[in-house]
Protein backbone atom coordinates (compact mmCIF):
# COMPACT_ATOMS: atom_id res chain seq x y z
CA UNK A 1 0.00 0.00 0.00
CA UNK A 2 1.15 3.47 -0.87
CA UNK A 3 2.81 5.17 2.09
CA UNK A 4 1.58 8.70 2.48
CA UNK A 5 2.16 11.51 4.92
CA UNK A 6 -1.48 11.30 5.94
CA UNK A 7 -1.45 7.68 7.02
CA UNK A 8 -1.14 7.54 10.82
CA UNK A 9 -0.29 3.81 10.86
CA UNK A 10 3.11 3.11 12.39
CA UNK A 11 4.34 -0.40 11.70
CA UNK A 12 5.84 -2.18 14.67
CA UNK A 13 6.13 -5.45 16.53
CA UNK A 14 4.88 -4.49 20.00
CA UNK A 15 2.35 -6.60 21.85
CA UNK A 16 -0.34 -4.08 20.96
CA UNK A 17 0.59 -4.28 17.27
CA UNK A 18 0.37 -8.04 17.43
CA UNK A 19 -3.01 -8.11 19.13
CA UNK A 20 -5.75 -9.07 16.68
CA UNK A 21 -7.40 -6.01 15.09
CA UNK A 22 -10.87 -7.26 16.04
CA UNK A 23 -9.90 -7.45 19.71
CA UNK A 24 -8.29 -4.01 19.60
CA UNK A 25 -11.30 -2.51 17.87
CA UNK A 26 -13.83 -3.95 20.32
CA UNK A 27 -11.69 -3.06 23.34
CA UNK A 28 -11.21 0.52 22.11
CA UNK A 29 -14.96 0.93 21.71
CA UNK A 30 -15.58 -0.64 25.13
CA UNK A 31 -12.98 1.61 26.72
CA UNK A 32 -14.48 4.74 25.19
CA UNK A 33 -17.98 3.63 26.23
CA UNK A 34 -16.75 3.06 29.80
CA UNK A 35 -15.19 6.53 29.80
CA UNK A 36 -18.44 8.03 28.54
CA UNK A 37 -20.48 6.22 31.21
CA UNK A 38 -18.23 7.42 34.05
CA UNK A 39 -20.10 10.15 35.93
CA UNK A 40 -18.95 13.76 36.20
CA UNK A 41 -16.36 14.32 38.91
CA UNK A 42 -15.39 10.67 39.48
CA UNK A 43 -11.73 11.60 39.71
CA UNK A 44 -10.30 8.24 40.90
CA UNK A 45 -11.97 6.50 37.95
CA UNK A 46 -10.48 9.05 35.54
CA UNK A 47 -7.04 8.38 36.99
CA UNK A 48 -7.56 4.64 36.53
CA UNK A 49 -8.65 5.11 32.92
CA UNK A 50 -5.78 7.47 32.20
CA UNK A 51 -3.34 4.99 33.74
CA UNK A 52 -4.82 2.27 31.52
CA UNK A 53 -4.39 4.47 28.44
CA UNK A 54 -0.78 5.26 29.34
CA UNK A 55 0.00 1.58 29.97
CA UNK A 56 -1.36 0.75 26.51
CA UNK A 57 0.72 3.57 25.02
CA UNK A 58 3.88 2.22 26.68
CA UNK A 59 3.09 -1.35 25.56
CA UNK A 60 2.49 -0.13 22.02
CA UNK A 61 6.04 1.32 21.84
CA UNK A 62 4.68 4.34 20.01
CA UNK A 63 6.08 6.66 22.63
CA UNK A 64 3.79 8.27 25.19
CA UNK A 65 4.91 11.70 23.96
CA UNK A 66 3.80 10.92 20.41
CA UNK A 67 0.30 9.95 21.54
CA UNK A 68 -0.06 12.85 23.96
CA UNK A 69 1.04 15.38 21.32
CA UNK A 70 -1.48 14.05 18.84
CA UNK A 71 -4.17 13.97 21.55
CA UNK A 72 -3.65 17.67 22.23
CA UNK A 73 -4.04 18.50 18.55
CA UNK A 74 -7.45 16.85 18.57
CA UNK A 75 -8.71 18.90 21.49
CA UNK A 76 -9.67 22.45 20.42
CA UNK A 77 -13.30 21.35 20.55
CA UNK A 78 -13.02 21.47 24.36
CA UNK A 79 -13.59 25.20 24.17
CA UNK A 80 -17.15 24.48 23.07
CA UNK A 81 -17.75 23.21 26.60
CA UNK A 82 -16.09 26.19 28.28
CA UNK A 83 -19.31 28.16 28.88
CA UNK A 84 -20.54 25.49 31.33
CA UNK A 85 -18.10 26.74 33.96
CA UNK A 86 -20.22 29.86 34.23
CA UNK A 87 -23.70 28.49 33.66
CA UNK A 88 -23.99 25.46 35.93
CA UNK A 89 -25.53 26.77 39.14
CA UNK A 90 -23.68 26.17 42.38
CA UNK A 91 -21.22 27.57 44.86
CA UNK A 92 -19.13 30.38 43.42
CA UNK A 93 -15.47 29.59 42.93
CA UNK A 94 -14.19 32.76 41.39
CA UNK A 95 -15.71 35.95 40.06
CA UNK A 96 -14.30 37.73 37.07
CA UNK A 97 -15.49 41.11 35.97
CA UNK A 98 -14.74 42.08 32.40
CA UNK A 99 -16.06 45.57 31.76
CA UNK A 100 -19.78 45.59 32.39
CA UNK A 101 -20.06 41.80 32.72
CA UNK A 102 -19.47 39.84 35.86
CA UNK A 103 -18.69 36.19 35.19
CA UNK A 104 -18.85 33.78 38.06
CA UNK A 105 -17.11 30.44 37.81
CA UNK A 106 -19.06 27.93 39.86
CA UNK A 107 -17.59 24.86 41.52
CA UNK A 108 -19.94 22.34 39.81
CA UNK A 109 -19.39 24.19 36.55
CA UNK A 110 -15.62 23.87 36.78
CA UNK A 111 -15.99 20.22 37.80
CA UNK A 112 -18.17 19.49 34.80
CA UNK A 113 -15.83 21.25 32.39
CA UNK A 114 -12.69 19.51 33.65
CA UNK A 115 -14.50 16.17 33.57
CA UNK A 116 -15.59 16.65 29.96
CA UNK A 117 -12.09 17.70 28.92
CA UNK A 118 -10.50 14.74 30.71
CA UNK A 119 -12.93 12.20 29.30
CA UNK A 120 -12.42 13.53 25.82
CA UNK A 121 -8.63 13.53 26.23
CA UNK A 122 -8.53 9.96 27.56
CA UNK A 123 -10.85 8.68 24.82
CA UNK A 124 -8.91 10.27 21.99
CA UNK A 125 -5.65 8.72 23.24
CA UNK A 126 -7.10 5.25 22.85
CA UNK A 127 -8.42 6.06 19.37
CA UNK A 128 -4.95 7.30 18.39
CA UNK A 129 -3.32 4.08 19.60
CA UNK A 130 -5.84 2.04 17.62
CA UNK A 131 -5.18 3.97 14.41
CA UNK A 132 -1.41 4.01 14.88
CA UNK A 133 -1.02 0.29 15.62
CA UNK A 134 -3.56 -1.17 13.19
CA UNK A 135 -3.25 -1.08 9.43
CA UNK A 136 -6.35 -0.11 7.52
CA UNK A 137 -6.96 -3.55 5.96
CA UNK A 138 -6.94 -4.99 9.49
CA UNK A 139 -9.46 -2.36 10.57
CA UNK A 140 -11.65 -3.46 7.66
CA UNK A 141 -11.44 -7.02 9.00
CA UNK A 142 -12.51 -5.73 12.39
CA UNK A 143 -15.45 -3.92 10.81
CA UNK A 144 -16.50 -7.14 9.11
CA UNK A 145 -16.23 -8.96 12.43
CA UNK A 146 -18.67 -6.60 14.13
CA UNK A 147 -21.12 -7.18 11.27
CA UNK A 148 -20.80 -3.94 9.35
CA UNK A 149 -22.50 -4.75 6.01
CA UNK A 150 -20.04 -6.11 3.44
CA UNK A 151 -21.00 -3.52 0.87
CA UNK A 152 -20.18 -0.68 3.24
CA UNK A 153 -16.87 -2.31 4.18
CA UNK A 154 -16.07 -2.58 0.48
CA UNK A 155 -16.80 1.14 0.00
CA UNK A 156 -14.53 1.94 2.97
CA UNK A 157 -11.80 -0.20 1.45
CA UNK A 158 -12.07 1.38 -1.97
CA UNK A 159 -12.14 4.83 -0.47
CA UNK A 160 -8.93 4.13 1.43
CA UNK A 161 -7.25 2.71 -1.65
CA UNK A 162 -7.96 5.85 -3.69
CA UNK A 163 -7.79 8.37 -0.89
CA UNK A 164 -4.13 9.10 -1.40
CA UNK A 165 -4.50 9.24 -5.17
CA UNK A 166 -7.21 11.86 -4.83
CA UNK A 167 -5.43 13.75 -2.08
CA UNK A 168 -2.45 13.96 -4.43
CA UNK A 169 -4.84 15.16 -7.11
CA UNK A 170 -6.14 17.88 -4.78
CA UNK A 171 -2.60 18.88 -3.86
CA UNK A 172 -1.75 19.18 -7.57
CA UNK A 173 -4.78 21.41 -8.06
CA UNK A 174 -3.65 23.59 -5.16
CA UNK A 175 -0.11 23.77 -6.51
CA UNK A 176 -1.50 24.79 -9.89
CA UNK A 177 -3.50 27.57 -8.26
CA UNK A 178 -0.49 28.69 -6.26
CA UNK A 179 1.75 28.80 -9.31
CA UNK A 180 -0.78 30.97 -11.14
CA UNK A 181 -1.25 33.34 -8.23
CA UNK A 182 1.02 36.25 -7.48
CA UNK A 183 1.43 38.78 -4.75
CA UNK A 184 3.11 42.14 -4.89
CA UNK A 185 4.36 44.60 -2.31
CA UNK A 186 3.12 47.53 -4.38
CA UNK A 187 0.08 49.03 -2.77
CA UNK A 188 -1.80 49.71 -5.97
CA UNK A 189 -1.60 46.05 -6.92
CA UNK A 190 -4.10 43.96 -5.04
CA UNK A 191 -3.49 40.25 -4.93
CA UNK A 192 -6.33 37.92 -5.74
CA UNK A 193 -9.81 38.83 -6.84
CA UNK A 194 -12.91 39.47 -4.81
CA UNK A 195 -14.17 36.92 -2.30
CA UNK A 196 -16.74 35.58 -4.75
CA UNK A 197 -14.04 35.14 -7.37
CA UNK A 198 -11.77 33.28 -4.96
CA UNK A 199 -14.65 31.04 -3.94
CA UNK A 200 -15.43 30.39 -7.60
CA UNK A 201 -11.82 29.35 -8.26
CA UNK A 202 -11.88 26.97 -5.28
CA UNK A 203 -15.24 25.67 -6.46
CA UNK A 204 -13.90 25.06 -9.94
CA UNK A 205 -11.06 23.09 -8.42
CA UNK A 206 -13.53 21.00 -6.39
CA UNK A 207 -15.66 20.51 -9.50
CA UNK A 208 -12.78 19.24 -11.58
CA UNK A 209 -11.70 17.00 -8.71
CA UNK A 210 -15.18 15.44 -8.64
CA UNK A 211 -15.27 15.04 -12.41
CA UNK A 212 -11.89 13.35 -12.41
CA UNK A 213 -13.09 11.13 -9.57
CA UNK A 214 -16.21 10.16 -11.53
CA UNK A 215 -14.16 9.33 -14.60
CA UNK A 216 -11.70 7.40 -12.49
CA UNK A 217 -14.52 5.43 -10.90
CA UNK A 218 -15.71 4.50 -14.42
CA UNK A 219 -12.26 3.22 -15.31
CA UNK A 220 -12.00 1.33 -12.02
CA UNK A 221 -15.37 -0.26 -12.67
CA UNK A 222 -14.16 -1.40 -16.11
CA UNK A 223 -11.01 -2.93 -14.66
CA UNK A 224 -13.06 -4.64 -11.98
CA UNK A 225 -15.37 -6.08 -14.65
CA UNK A 226 -12.35 -7.22 -16.65
CA UNK A 227 -11.19 -9.14 -13.59
CA UNK A 228 -14.50 -10.89 -13.14
CA UNK A 229 -16.38 -8.59 -10.77
CA UNK A 230 -20.08 -9.43 -10.75
CA UNK A 231 -21.40 -7.02 -8.14
CA UNK A 232 -20.92 -9.44 -5.29
CA UNK A 233 -18.40 -8.39 -2.66
CA UNK A 234 -16.51 -11.48 -1.57
CA UNK A 235 -14.01 -11.83 1.20
CA UNK A 236 -12.04 -14.65 2.73
CA UNK A 237 -13.55 -16.03 5.95
CA UNK A 238 -12.26 -14.39 9.11
CA UNK A 239 -9.37 -16.28 10.69
CA UNK A 240 -10.10 -17.66 14.18
CA UNK A 241 -8.86 -15.70 17.20
CA UNK A 242 -5.90 -17.15 19.03
CA UNK A 243 -6.18 -18.18 22.64
CA UNK A 244 -4.10 -15.20 23.71
CA UNK A 245 -6.48 -12.84 21.89
CA UNK A 246 -9.53 -14.36 23.55
CA UNK A 247 -7.86 -14.14 26.92
CA UNK A 248 -6.92 -10.47 26.42
CA UNK A 249 -10.42 -9.68 25.20
CA UNK A 250 -12.25 -11.18 28.17
CA UNK A 251 -9.73 -10.01 30.74
CA UNK A 252 -9.92 -6.39 29.54
CA UNK A 253 -13.70 -6.46 29.17
CA UNK A 254 -13.91 -7.78 32.74
CA UNK A 255 -11.61 -5.05 34.00
CA UNK A 256 -13.60 -2.38 32.19
CA UNK A 257 -16.78 -3.77 33.69
CA UNK A 258 -15.19 -3.68 37.15
CA UNK A 259 -14.21 -0.05 36.58
CA UNK A 260 -17.76 0.69 35.53
CA UNK A 261 -19.15 -0.93 38.68
CA UNK A 262 -16.65 1.12 40.67
CA UNK A 263 -17.81 4.27 38.87
CA UNK A 264 -21.44 3.45 39.64
CA UNK A 265 -20.67 2.90 43.33
CA UNK A 266 -18.61 6.06 43.43
Amino acid at each position, binding site marked *: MHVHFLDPYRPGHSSIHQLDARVKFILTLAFILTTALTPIGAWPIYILLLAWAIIVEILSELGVGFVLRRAVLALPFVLAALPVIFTVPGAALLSLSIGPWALTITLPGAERFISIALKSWISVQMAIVLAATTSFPDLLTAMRAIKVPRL*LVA*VFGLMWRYLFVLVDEALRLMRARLSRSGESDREDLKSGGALIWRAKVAGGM*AGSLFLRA*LERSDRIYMTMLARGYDGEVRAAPLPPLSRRDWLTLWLCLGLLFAILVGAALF
Partner: protein
Amino acid sequence: MLLSPFLSPQPMHIPDGFLSPLVSILLWVFSVLAIAYSLKRVNEDLGERQVPLMGVLAAAIFAGQMLNFTVAGGTSGHLMGAAIATILLGPWAAILVMTTVVGVQALIFQDGGLLALGANIFNMGVIGVATSYFVNRTIRRIAGERRWGVFLGGFLAAWVSIVLAALAVALQLSLSRTSPANIAIPAMAGIHALIGFGEGLITIGALALIYAARPDLLLSSKQRAVGGNALWVSGLAIALALAIASPLASSQPDGLEWVAEQQGFLDTARGPFYEIIPDYIFPGISNQAIATILAGVLGTLMVFGVSFAVAYSRRKRRLNEVRQSR
Protein backbone atom coordinates in the same frame (compact mmCIF):
# COMPACT_ATOMS: atom_id res chain seq x y z
CA MET B 1 -10.82 32.60 21.57
CA LEU B 2 -14.20 31.25 22.55
CA LEU B 3 -15.14 30.94 18.94
CA SER B 4 -12.08 29.11 17.71
CA PRO B 5 -13.52 25.59 18.04
CA PHE B 6 -16.32 26.70 15.81
CA LEU B 7 -13.91 28.22 13.28
CA SER B 8 -11.54 25.27 13.00
CA PRO B 9 -11.59 23.63 9.57
CA GLN B 10 -13.94 20.83 10.57
CA PRO B 11 -15.95 22.40 13.34
CA MET B 12 -18.72 19.86 13.18
CA HIS B 13 -16.97 16.67 14.25
CA ILE B 14 -17.95 16.02 17.86
CA PRO B 15 -15.15 14.21 19.77
CA ASP B 16 -15.78 11.51 22.36
CA GLY B 17 -16.60 12.71 25.86
CA PHE B 18 -18.90 15.50 24.76
CA LEU B 19 -22.11 13.58 24.30
CA SER B 20 -23.94 11.71 27.02
CA PRO B 21 -24.04 7.93 26.44
CA LEU B 22 -27.80 8.06 25.89
CA VAL B 23 -27.55 10.72 23.17
CA SER B 24 -24.63 8.91 21.49
CA ILE B 25 -26.37 5.56 21.42
CA LEU B 26 -29.69 6.98 20.28
CA LEU B 27 -28.01 8.74 17.37
CA TRP B 28 -26.08 5.57 16.53
CA VAL B 29 -29.44 3.79 16.25
CA PHE B 30 -30.84 6.50 13.94
CA SER B 31 -27.71 6.44 11.80
CA VAL B 32 -27.64 2.66 11.52
CA LEU B 33 -31.28 2.66 10.42
CA ALA B 34 -30.59 5.35 7.81
CA ILE B 35 -27.48 3.51 6.55
CA ALA B 36 -29.33 0.20 6.35
CA TYR B 37 -32.14 1.72 4.34
CA SER B 38 -29.68 3.57 2.08
CA LEU B 39 -27.77 0.35 1.43
CA LYS B 40 -30.99 -1.32 0.36
CA ARG B 41 -31.95 1.55 -1.96
CA VAL B 42 -28.47 1.90 -3.45
CA ASN B 43 -28.45 -1.82 -4.20
CA GLU B 44 -31.64 -1.37 -6.20
CA ASP B 45 -30.72 1.87 -7.92
CA LEU B 46 -27.04 1.64 -8.77
CA GLY B 47 -26.47 -2.07 -9.01
CA GLU B 48 -22.96 -3.37 -9.27
CA ARG B 49 -21.45 -0.04 -10.23
CA GLN B 50 -21.99 1.27 -6.70
CA VAL B 51 -18.78 0.16 -4.97
CA PRO B 52 -16.24 1.93 -7.21
CA LEU B 53 -18.48 4.97 -7.64
CA MET B 54 -19.14 5.55 -3.93
CA GLY B 55 -15.63 4.63 -2.84
CA VAL B 56 -13.89 6.99 -5.22
CA LEU B 57 -16.40 9.78 -4.64
CA ALA B 58 -15.91 9.44 -0.88
CA ALA B 59 -12.17 9.80 -1.43
CA ALA B 60 -12.85 12.84 -3.62
CA ILE B 61 -15.05 14.47 -0.96
CA PHE B 62 -12.32 13.84 1.62
CA ALA B 63 -9.70 15.36 -0.67
CA GLY B 64 -12.08 18.15 -1.68
CA GLN B 65 -12.32 19.23 1.95
CA MET B 66 -8.68 20.26 1.65
CA LEU B 67 -9.48 22.80 -1.05
CA ASN B 68 -9.96 26.13 0.62
CA PHE B 69 -10.08 29.80 -0.14
CA THR B 70 -9.08 32.59 2.19
CA VAL B 71 -11.93 34.67 3.54
CA ALA B 72 -10.40 37.21 5.89
CA GLY B 73 -8.18 37.34 8.93
CA GLY B 74 -6.74 33.85 8.63
CA THR B 75 -10.08 32.11 8.26
CA SER B 76 -10.92 30.18 5.16
CA GLY B 77 -13.89 28.61 3.44
CA HIS B 78 -14.06 24.84 3.14
CA LEU B 79 -16.27 22.17 1.74
CA MET B 80 -18.22 19.68 3.84
CA GLY B 81 -19.61 18.13 0.71
CA ALA B 82 -23.02 16.75 1.72
CA ALA B 83 -24.84 18.99 -0.76
CA ILE B 84 -22.59 18.32 -3.75
CA ALA B 85 -22.62 14.58 -3.01
CA THR B 86 -26.42 14.64 -2.88
CA ILE B 87 -26.64 16.52 -6.17
CA LEU B 88 -24.14 14.31 -8.00
CA LEU B 89 -25.04 10.88 -6.61
CA GLY B 90 -28.60 11.12 -5.35
CA PRO B 91 -29.47 11.02 -1.66
CA TRP B 92 -29.04 7.33 -0.83
CA ALA B 93 -25.54 6.99 -2.22
CA ALA B 94 -24.70 10.39 -0.69
CA ILE B 95 -25.64 9.15 2.80
CA LEU B 96 -23.26 6.20 2.35
CA VAL B 97 -20.51 8.40 0.91
CA MET B 98 -20.76 10.84 3.80
CA THR B 99 -20.83 7.92 6.25
CA THR B 100 -17.60 6.64 4.74
CA VAL B 101 -15.94 10.06 4.81
CA VAL B 102 -16.94 10.76 8.42
CA GLY B 103 -16.08 7.20 9.42
CA VAL B 104 -12.56 7.36 8.03
CA GLN B 105 -12.05 10.78 9.59
CA ALA B 106 -12.96 9.35 12.99
CA LEU B 107 -11.21 5.99 12.70
CA ILE B 108 -7.96 7.16 11.18
CA PHE B 109 -7.59 10.84 11.89
CA GLN B 110 -9.42 11.19 15.22
CA ASP B 111 -11.50 13.92 13.64
CA GLY B 112 -14.58 13.23 15.73
CA GLY B 113 -14.97 10.43 18.26
CA LEU B 114 -15.84 6.76 17.81
CA LEU B 115 -18.76 6.66 20.22
CA ALA B 116 -19.77 10.05 18.86
CA LEU B 117 -19.45 8.74 15.30
CA GLY B 118 -23.14 7.87 15.21
CA ALA B 119 -23.96 11.50 15.97
CA ASN B 120 -21.46 12.78 13.42
CA ILE B 121 -22.80 10.48 10.72
CA PHE B 122 -26.30 11.60 11.63
CA ASN B 123 -25.44 15.31 11.48
CA MET B 124 -23.28 15.38 8.38
CA GLY B 125 -24.65 12.34 6.58
CA VAL B 126 -28.33 12.04 7.34
CA ILE B 127 -29.30 15.64 8.21
CA GLY B 128 -26.89 17.16 5.68
CA VAL B 129 -28.09 14.93 2.86
CA ALA B 130 -31.83 14.91 3.67
CA THR B 131 -32.05 18.69 3.97
CA SER B 132 -29.85 19.20 0.88
CA TYR B 133 -32.13 16.89 -1.04
CA PHE B 134 -35.25 18.64 0.16
CA VAL B 135 -33.97 22.13 -0.70
CA ASN B 136 -32.37 21.21 -4.00
CA ARG B 137 -35.35 19.15 -5.13
CA THR B 138 -37.76 21.97 -4.30
CA ILE B 139 -35.79 24.58 -6.22
CA ARG B 140 -35.20 22.25 -9.17
CA ARG B 141 -38.88 21.36 -9.32
CA ILE B 142 -39.74 25.05 -9.49
CA ALA B 143 -37.03 25.86 -12.01
CA GLY B 144 -37.66 22.91 -14.27
CA GLU B 145 -34.66 22.12 -16.45
CA ARG B 146 -33.38 25.69 -16.41
CA ARG B 147 -29.86 26.69 -15.56
CA TRP B 148 -30.50 28.96 -12.58
CA GLY B 149 -32.26 26.16 -10.75
CA VAL B 150 -29.06 24.13 -10.75
CA PHE B 151 -27.07 26.93 -9.15
CA LEU B 152 -29.66 28.37 -6.79
CA GLY B 153 -30.61 24.86 -5.71
CA GLY B 154 -26.96 23.98 -5.13
CA PHE B 155 -26.20 27.12 -3.16
CA LEU B 156 -29.25 26.94 -0.92
CA ALA B 157 -28.83 23.19 -0.37
CA ALA B 158 -25.24 23.75 0.72
CA TRP B 159 -26.11 26.63 3.03
CA VAL B 160 -29.11 24.93 4.61
CA SER B 161 -27.28 21.64 5.12
CA ILE B 162 -24.40 23.36 6.92
CA VAL B 163 -26.56 25.52 9.16
CA LEU B 164 -28.96 22.74 10.10
CA ALA B 165 -26.16 20.26 10.79
CA ALA B 166 -24.54 22.88 13.04
CA LEU B 167 -27.83 23.44 14.85
CA ALA B 168 -28.10 19.70 15.39
CA VAL B 169 -24.59 19.66 16.88
CA ALA B 170 -25.50 22.49 19.24
CA LEU B 171 -28.73 20.79 20.28
CA GLN B 172 -26.96 17.50 20.93
CA LEU B 173 -24.30 19.24 23.02
CA SER B 174 -26.89 21.04 25.07
CA LEU B 175 -28.96 17.88 25.43
CA SER B 176 -25.84 16.23 26.84
CA ARG B 177 -25.40 19.25 29.11
CA THR B 178 -21.97 19.89 27.66
CA SER B 179 -22.60 23.36 26.33
CA PRO B 180 -25.39 25.68 27.46
CA ALA B 181 -28.02 25.95 24.76
CA ASN B 182 -28.35 29.71 25.01
CA ILE B 183 -24.69 30.07 24.06
CA ALA B 184 -24.07 27.06 21.81
CA ILE B 185 -27.08 27.46 19.55
CA PRO B 186 -26.66 31.16 18.63
CA ALA B 187 -22.88 30.71 18.32
CA MET B 188 -23.11 27.64 16.08
CA ALA B 189 -25.96 29.10 14.03
CA GLY B 190 -24.28 32.46 13.57
CA ILE B 191 -20.88 31.14 12.59
CA HIS B 192 -22.25 28.45 10.34
CA ALA B 193 -24.48 30.92 8.58
CA LEU B 194 -21.15 32.39 7.35
CA ILE B 195 -19.40 29.05 6.84
CA GLY B 196 -22.46 27.85 4.94
CA PHE B 197 -22.09 30.86 2.66
CA GLY B 198 -18.57 29.68 1.78
CA GLU B 199 -19.85 26.15 1.25
CA GLY B 200 -22.56 27.53 -1.01
CA LEU B 201 -20.10 29.54 -3.09
CA ILE B 202 -17.73 26.58 -3.55
CA THR B 203 -20.71 24.40 -4.45
CA ILE B 204 -21.79 26.89 -7.11
CA GLY B 205 -18.24 27.00 -8.48
CA ALA B 206 -18.08 23.22 -8.62
CA LEU B 207 -21.52 22.97 -10.22
CA ALA B 208 -20.56 25.64 -12.79
CA LEU B 209 -17.56 23.60 -13.89
CA ILE B 210 -19.52 20.35 -13.97
CA TYR B 211 -22.36 22.08 -15.83
CA ALA B 212 -19.92 23.30 -18.47
CA ALA B 213 -18.13 19.97 -18.85
CA ARG B 214 -20.80 17.34 -18.18
CA PRO B 215 -24.26 18.93 -18.09
CA ASP B 216 -25.77 15.46 -18.38
CA LEU B 217 -24.75 14.76 -14.77
CA LEU B 218 -26.84 17.64 -13.50
CA LEU B 219 -29.81 17.67 -15.83
CA SER B 220 -30.55 13.97 -16.00
CA SER B 221 -33.90 12.96 -14.62
CA LYS B 222 -32.23 10.06 -12.84
CA GLN B 223 -31.92 12.02 -9.62
CA ARG B 224 -35.62 12.67 -9.39
CA ALA B 225 -36.67 9.06 -9.26
CA VAL B 226 -34.07 8.10 -6.70
CA GLY B 227 -35.13 10.12 -3.69
CA GLY B 228 -38.87 10.06 -3.76
CA ASN B 229 -41.38 12.07 -1.83
CA ALA B 230 -40.81 10.36 1.52
CA LEU B 231 -37.28 11.68 1.68
CA TRP B 232 -38.41 15.11 0.56
CA VAL B 233 -40.90 15.14 3.43
CA SER B 234 -38.30 13.93 5.94
CA GLY B 235 -35.94 16.67 4.77
CA LEU B 236 -38.67 19.21 5.34
CA ALA B 237 -39.53 17.68 8.72
CA ILE B 238 -35.89 17.72 9.89
CA ALA B 239 -35.50 21.32 8.74
CA LEU B 240 -38.68 22.41 10.50
CA ALA B 241 -37.91 20.48 13.68
CA LEU B 242 -34.47 22.05 13.96
CA ALA B 243 -35.75 25.49 13.07
CA ILE B 244 -38.40 25.30 15.77
CA ALA B 245 -36.45 23.48 18.48
CA SER B 246 -33.41 25.74 18.27
CA PRO B 247 -34.93 29.10 19.20
CA LEU B 248 -37.05 27.39 21.85
CA ALA B 249 -34.05 25.72 23.42
CA SER B 250 -31.75 28.70 23.07
CA SER B 251 -33.96 30.87 25.25
CA GLN B 252 -32.75 28.92 28.29
CA PRO B 253 -29.37 27.57 29.35
CA ASP B 254 -30.93 24.18 30.05
CA GLY B 255 -32.18 24.17 26.51
CA LEU B 256 -34.23 21.14 25.60
CA GLU B 257 -34.70 20.10 29.17
CA TRP B 258 -36.39 23.38 29.70
CA VAL B 259 -38.50 22.82 26.62
CA ALA B 260 -39.56 19.42 27.89
CA GLU B 261 -40.39 20.92 31.24
CA GLN B 262 -42.31 23.63 29.48
CA GLN B 263 -44.27 21.05 27.49
CA GLY B 264 -45.14 19.15 30.62
CA PHE B 265 -45.89 22.38 32.28
CA LEU B 266 -48.25 23.47 29.54
CA ASP B 267 -50.36 20.36 30.10
CA THR B 268 -50.77 21.12 33.76
CA ALA B 269 -50.85 24.85 33.30
CA ARG B 270 -53.93 25.26 35.48
CA GLY B 271 -52.74 22.88 38.16
CA PRO B 272 -50.93 23.80 41.34
CA PHE B 273 -47.61 23.44 39.47
CA TYR B 274 -48.25 26.93 38.19
CA GLU B 275 -47.15 28.47 41.44
CA ILE B 276 -43.78 26.78 41.37
CA ILE B 277 -42.69 28.79 38.38
CA PRO B 278 -41.88 32.27 39.65
CA ASP B 279 -43.94 34.93 37.96
CA TYR B 280 -41.07 36.90 36.62
CA ILE B 281 -39.66 33.99 34.61
CA PHE B 282 -42.66 32.41 33.01
CA PRO B 283 -44.53 35.16 31.15
CA GLY B 284 -41.45 36.87 29.79
CA ILE B 285 -39.60 33.77 28.61
CA SER B 286 -42.65 32.05 27.27
CA ASN B 287 -43.60 35.06 25.24
CA GLN B 288 -40.08 35.46 24.08
CA ALA B 289 -39.80 31.83 23.00
CA ILE B 290 -43.14 31.84 21.24
CA ALA B 291 -42.25 35.12 19.63
CA THR B 292 -38.96 33.67 18.41
CA ILE B 293 -40.69 30.64 16.95
CA LEU B 294 -43.36 32.74 15.31
CA ALA B 295 -40.68 34.96 13.85
CA GLY B 296 -38.78 31.90 12.62
CA VAL B 297 -41.84 30.32 11.05
CA LEU B 298 -42.98 33.62 9.54
CA GLY B 299 -39.49 34.25 8.20
CA THR B 300 -39.32 30.78 6.66
CA LEU B 301 -42.73 31.19 5.11
CA MET B 302 -41.82 34.62 3.78
CA VAL B 303 -38.58 33.40 2.25
CA PHE B 304 -40.39 30.50 0.65
CA GLY B 305 -43.22 32.75 -0.46
CA VAL B 306 -40.85 35.20 -2.09
CA SER B 307 -38.83 32.48 -3.79
CA PHE B 308 -41.97 30.78 -5.05
CA ALA B 309 -43.31 34.10 -6.30
CA VAL B 310 -40.06 34.97 -8.06
CA ALA B 311 -39.81 31.50 -9.55
CA TYR B 312 -43.37 31.50 -10.81
CA SER B 313 -43.12 34.99 -12.24
CA ARG B 314 -39.99 33.94 -14.11
CA ARG B 315 -41.71 30.87 -15.37
CA LYS B 316 -44.69 32.91 -16.53
CA ARG B 317 -42.48 35.43 -18.26
CA ARG B 318 -40.63 32.62 -19.94
CA LEU B 319 -43.85 31.05 -21.09
CA ASN B 320 -45.02 34.40 -22.47
CA GLU B 321 -41.71 34.85 -24.27
CA VAL B 322 -42.05 31.41 -25.76
CA ARG B 323 -45.59 32.14 -26.86
CA GLN B 324 -44.62 35.48 -28.36
CA SER B 325 -41.71 33.99 -30.21
CA ARG B 326 -44.10 31.56 -31.79
